[in-house]
C-alpha cells in the first residue's frame, strides 16, 4: 500500500490547481443544488400558507358554522400541521455539513422521511375529510335542500371520487419513485456504518 500512498501524493500537484478570484466569485454566486434545502423551501411555504389558513378557519367557524364537527376537526388538524411543519423545519436546521458523516446522514434521512410522511399525511387526510364530508352531507341533507345529493349528482360524486383516488395513487407512486430511492440510499449508507 505504500506505493499507492506515494502515487497519491505525487498526484497532489495536479489537484492543487489554484482557484482564481474570478472563479471563486462565480462559484459562490451560483445557486445551490442542495436537494435538502429545496425540500425545506417547500415545507417553509406550506408552513406559511397554513398560518394564513388558521384565521380564515376561525373566522368561518364564527361566521357560519355549517358543520361544527368538521370545522373543529379542521382547526385541530391545522394546529397539528403547524406543529408538524415547525418540527420539520427544526429538524432541517439541525443538519450541518460540518457534522461527522454518520450524524449528518442520520439527520438527513430523518428529514427526508418527515418530508415524505407529510405527503402521506396530506393524502390520508384528504381521504378522511372526503369521507366525513360525504357522511355529513348525507346526514344534513334531510333538512337542508342545498346539501342534498340527487341521483344525478351521485355520478358527479363518483367522477370526483375517481379523480381524487387517481390523484392520490399518482402522488403515492410519484413519491415512491422520487424519494423512496433516496431514502433507501441513505439507509444503505447508514447501515454500512454498523458493518465491520
Amino acid at each position: 500500500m505504500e506505493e499507492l500512498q506515494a502515487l497519491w501524493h505525487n498526484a497532489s500537484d495536479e489537484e492543487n490547481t489554484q482557484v482564481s478570484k474570478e472563479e471563486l466569485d462565480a462559484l459562490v454566486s451560483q445557486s445551490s443544488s442542495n436537494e435538502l434545502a429545496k425540500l425545506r423551501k417547500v415545507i417553509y411555504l406550506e408552513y406559511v400558507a397554513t398560518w394564513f389558513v388558521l384565521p380564515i378557519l376561525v373566522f368561518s367557524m364564527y361566521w357560519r358554522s355549517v358543520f361544527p364537527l368538521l370545522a373543529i376537526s379542521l382547526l385541530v388538524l391545522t394546529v397539528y400541521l403547524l406543529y408538524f411543519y415547525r418540527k420539520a423545519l427544526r429538524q432541517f436546521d439541525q443538519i450541518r455539513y460540518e457534522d461527522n458523516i454518520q450524524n449528518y446522514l442520520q439527520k438527513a434521512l430523518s428529514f427526508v422521511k418527515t418530508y415524505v410522511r407529510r405527503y402521506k399525511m396530506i393524502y390520508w387526510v384528504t381521504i378522511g375529510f372526503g369521507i366525513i364530508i360525504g357522511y355529513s352531507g348525507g346526514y344534513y341533507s334531510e333538512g337542508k335542500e342545498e346539501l342534498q345529493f340527487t341521483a344525478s349528482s351521485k355520478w358527479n360524486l363518483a367522477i370526483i371520487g375517481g379523480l381524487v383516488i387517481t390523484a392520490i395513487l399518482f402522488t403515492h407512486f410519484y413519491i415512491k419513485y422520487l424519494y423512496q430511492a433516496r431514502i433507501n440510499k441513505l439507509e444503505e449508507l447508514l447501515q454500512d456504518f454498523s458493518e465491520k
Partner: protein
Amino acid sequence: MQHKQEFHGFLNEHTAIIRKVCRLYTDNQADFHDYFQEVVLQLWKSFTSFRGEAKASTWIYRVALNVCLSQLKLKKRRITATTIDPEAAKHWADEPYDTTQEEQFQRLYAAIRQLKELDRALILLYLEERSYEEMADILGMGISNVGVRINRIKKQLNQLIHGRAASTMA
C-alpha cells in the same frame, strides 16, 4: 471583502482535498464540476462559523464528504476502468505529467470508485495519511471499527488493482 479574501487563501491552501473527494464520487467532468461548486459554496456559507475548533482539514473533509454523499445520484453505478475516457481524464489535469503515472493514477481512482461509498471515504483518508482518530472523528465511527475496515479495504483495493493491472502496479 476581506472575509472573501481570507476564504480565497484558505480555499487555495486546501483545494486538493476538495478535488480529490469530488473526483472519488464522480465519473465525469460535469458532475465533478457540480460537486466541486457545491462543496465550495457550502464551505463559503459556513466559513464564518468555522472557529478553528476542529482542524481545518477535518472540517473540509466533513463538509466535502457530506456534500458528495448527499449529492450522489440515485442510480446504482459501478465504475470500471474501461468506462473512463482517457482523453476526458487527461483534461482534468491542467499540467501534463508522466503518462505512466497518469495511467496509474486514473487506475487507482477507478479502483477506488468501485468500492462502497463509505469505503471510498475511508481509503481516501488512509491515502491522505490521516490518523485513525481523525478518520473516526470525520466519519463518526469507532476507532477499532476504522482499523478493521481499513485492513479489509486495503485487501480489496489490492485485489482490484493487481487483479486488473499487475504489471503496472506491482
